[in-house]
């Protein structure tokens, strides 16, 4: 699991994910909503076979924070 690949999977959830990088505060993105939060949890389940919880998404500010949360559960 690499940060680059994670950012790519994350950005793929968005229509306009081109600008997203590891330091992006993703909840400030205009496309961010509760469906996106569910989608992130589902993407992590599908790509990494890891169950993260709503609170993990809530606590993360940047994409890298999320990456670290997933890594911690691998």
């Amino acid at each position, binding site marked *: 699991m690499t940060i680059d690949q994670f950012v790519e999977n994350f950005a793929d959830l968005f229509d306009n994910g081109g600008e997203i990088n590891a330091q992006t505060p993703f909840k400030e993105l205009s496309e961010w909503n509760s469906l996106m939060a*569910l*989608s992130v949890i589902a993407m992590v*389940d599908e790509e990494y076979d890891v169950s993260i*919880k*709503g*609170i993990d*998404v809530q606590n993360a500010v940047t994409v890298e924070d999320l990456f670290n949360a997933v890594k911690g559960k691998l």
Partner: protein
Amino acid sequence: MSINPFSLEGKTVLVTGASSGIGRETAIRVSQMGGTVVVVGRNRGRLEDTFAALEGTDRVHRQVVCDQTNEEDLERLIDGIPQLDGVVQCAGTSVLFPFQFSTREKYDRVFEVNFFSTVELLRLLYKKKKISNGGSVVLIASVGGTTVFDTGNGVYGASKAALVSTMKFCAKEFAKKRIRVNAIAPGRVHTPLIESGTMTDEQIRMDEAKYPLGRYGEPADVAHGVIYLLSDAAAWVTGAMLVIDGGLSI
């Protein structure tokens, strides 16, 4: 005989999912209303807890540990149970996945419990004449997938919609034996099912605020509806979906 039309005295009722949540509360309340209960669940310890909480020690309550997705477990269950006047199927599971991540594997996992094994248990009970004429079957569906279509709830909702459809077919076919078949569609109820952590506490608080009656349900709110449908008070009710949702679907 009791003059209370909701009494379950003299009735033997099978309750699945009795090791937790709505099924557990239903089993206990059925026993409080005078019923004899067969409690079914997967987790032995939690099922024993429910069994110990049943009232009416003069009645022969039973407990059967059964993973209903396991064919042998199902057969053992069917062979070992007495003649039934009521069947309440509460066993169920849920997932939250946006449609684009709802793979066949996710549908299979949820449908296996909520639909296929639930329907197979009912089929076996009916075919083997374990449900007495005049009996009552109650399936626990959900407003999700039948009247409320929340984001991410598609797999679960589809399994419950399929169950409601089957309920109606059975209501028609079983009517010749005066066996009634109904479903209850609850809104969100405080049980371990909704505590998976996919939603944050804050999201849950916001969701709960959508309920006109101001709160999520408690297991007893659903159990009381089950008691009604099992009882002679509902003698002319079949093929119905009773919505118990604090007004959510208005």
